[in-house]
């Protein structure tokens, strides 16, 4: 789950990390009041879950509260990359001596959180890591043991930061690491972490992302502290018609599970695939043998004929799809004959010949013999478990390439 900047700021504040005085506002009047309370020049920032705010005009500077109100009014009406803002964040225009970078990210390879620190903040850390690797400090922390300040200190010291800067930045990075773990984050980033002209350190901007699976157990921070409603899932991905239709078919029938994705796929071979990681393996097998998948899908858990038929139909209706490949790893909890009925029915209902349309049917498992009788009847090419997933995918690719 991703958070708006004003929420990320609050999370940082709750962890005891210093922040500047800020206000989250949903009207121009509120923005004026926030700017008055802050005093002095302010920055008005659109609160959207997308990048490119600066370029789109979603970040404006104001010298007076009236100017802040005017900017807020404009920004609240400004759509950025298809997103309308939920409000604006009014921040003081800080007097910065130096910008730093501090973050904790989940390292999937090491399976541990990783602390990162740089004395070159305000820009992308990837760019700093590439161009100035000696200015990035790194260090893993334990998933279980308490985070010690000394661990943060080592990471910061590796960038050459010393003296009072080192002493002031250390508790901030340590607190960031603790909040990362306590709140099940996958990203907790402060960029920039600013050293102000008076020598103090404050978090000027923060980005937070929580592990989706942890949303259920993080009710305290989500509901009580941040006031995020249960139905607010923050899903910014706009599903395609194909994806929406498959989801609706799945929701309408409790038997089995189907999923369909077509993000980034526009090939001519439709995939009706699944079973125990089979979807990923099969998609790769098709692509690695020169095939062009039209979609990604998952089918399993013993779906009804209607559900298998619904998925196959949606795949077949996609632009450019010439044939479908129906393939799974070995199934024990999905009936082969039911899936066979479903995909053949889809072909027939769309006026297509199953023998021509189904490039290959490879689902070994429960009720396989019954399934084979159906496939025989309609002349569909099938294979058993003696043909590997790789070879089955290769047969489908060869067939479609031979056809075009």
């Amino acid at each position: 789950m991703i958070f708006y900047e004003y929420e990320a700021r609050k999370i940082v504040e709750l962890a005891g990390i210093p922040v500047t005085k800020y206000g989250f506002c949903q009207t121009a009047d509120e923005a004026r009041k926030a700017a008055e309370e802050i005093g002095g020049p302010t920055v008005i920032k659109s609160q959207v879950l997308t990048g490119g705010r600066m370029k789109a005009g979603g970040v404006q500077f104001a010298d007076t509260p009236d100017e802040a109100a005017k900017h807020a009014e404009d920004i609240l009406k400004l759509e950025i990359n298809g997103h309308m803002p939920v409000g604006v964040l009014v921040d003081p225009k800080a007097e910065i001596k130096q910008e730093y970078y501090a973050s904790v990210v989940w390292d999937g390879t090491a399976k541990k959180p990783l602390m990162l620190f740089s004395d070159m903040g305000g820009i992308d850390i990837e760019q700093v890591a590439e161009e100035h690797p000696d200015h990035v400090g790194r260090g893993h922390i334990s998933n279980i043991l308490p985070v010690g300040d000394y661990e943060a200190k080592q990471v910061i010291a590796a960038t050459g930061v010393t003296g009072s800067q080192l002493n002031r930045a250390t508790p901030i990075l340590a607190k960031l690491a603790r909040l990362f773990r306590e709140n099940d984050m996958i990203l907790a980033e402060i960029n920039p972490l600013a050293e102000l002209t008076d020598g103090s350190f404050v978090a000027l901007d923060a980005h937070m992302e929580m592990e989706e699976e942890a949303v259920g157990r993080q009710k305290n921070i989500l509901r009580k502290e941040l006031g995020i409603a249960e139905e607010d899932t923050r899903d910014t991905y706009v599903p395609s018609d194909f994806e929406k239709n498959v989801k609706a078919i799945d929701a309408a029938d409790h038997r089995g599970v189907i999923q369909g994705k077509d993000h980034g796929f526009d090939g001519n071979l439709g995939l009706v695939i699944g079973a125990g990681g089979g979807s990923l393996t099969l998609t790769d097998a098709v692509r690695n043998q020169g095939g062009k998948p039209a979609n990604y899908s998952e089918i399993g858990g013993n779906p009804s004929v209607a559900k298998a038929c619904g998925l196959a139909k949606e795949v077949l209706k996609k632009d450019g799809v010439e044939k479908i490949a129906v393939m799974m790893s070995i199934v024990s909890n999905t009936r082969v004959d039911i899936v066979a009925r479903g995909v053949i029915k889809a072909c027939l209902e769309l006026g297509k010949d199953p023998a021509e349309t189904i490039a290959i049917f490879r689902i070994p498992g429960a009720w396989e013999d019954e399934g084979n009788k159906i496939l025989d009847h309609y002349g569909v090419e099938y294979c058993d478990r003696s043909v590997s997933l790789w070879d089955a995918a290769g047969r489908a690719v060869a067939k479609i390439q031979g056809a075009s």
Partner: protein
Amino acid sequence: MSPAEAMDAVFIDIELDEPAKSDPELAKKLEEVCTVGIFKASAAGTEIVQGQLDECVLCYLCVDACPTGAMRIIKKYEN
């Protein structure tokens, strides 16, 4: 209407002879045993829901519930 109900059965047919078909008690029993909703009970007896026939999982509980030989499950793909 579910996709299955949109079209007549392709794979499965069911025949139920009289007088079993007109027996309201048997109709209730068939509606109860079939987990995929192929039978509907009414005062007139058993109605076979055509659009649902292809969902038959071949469990034969319906055949067991009927008098011997009164019901036949036909796999059209075997003909």
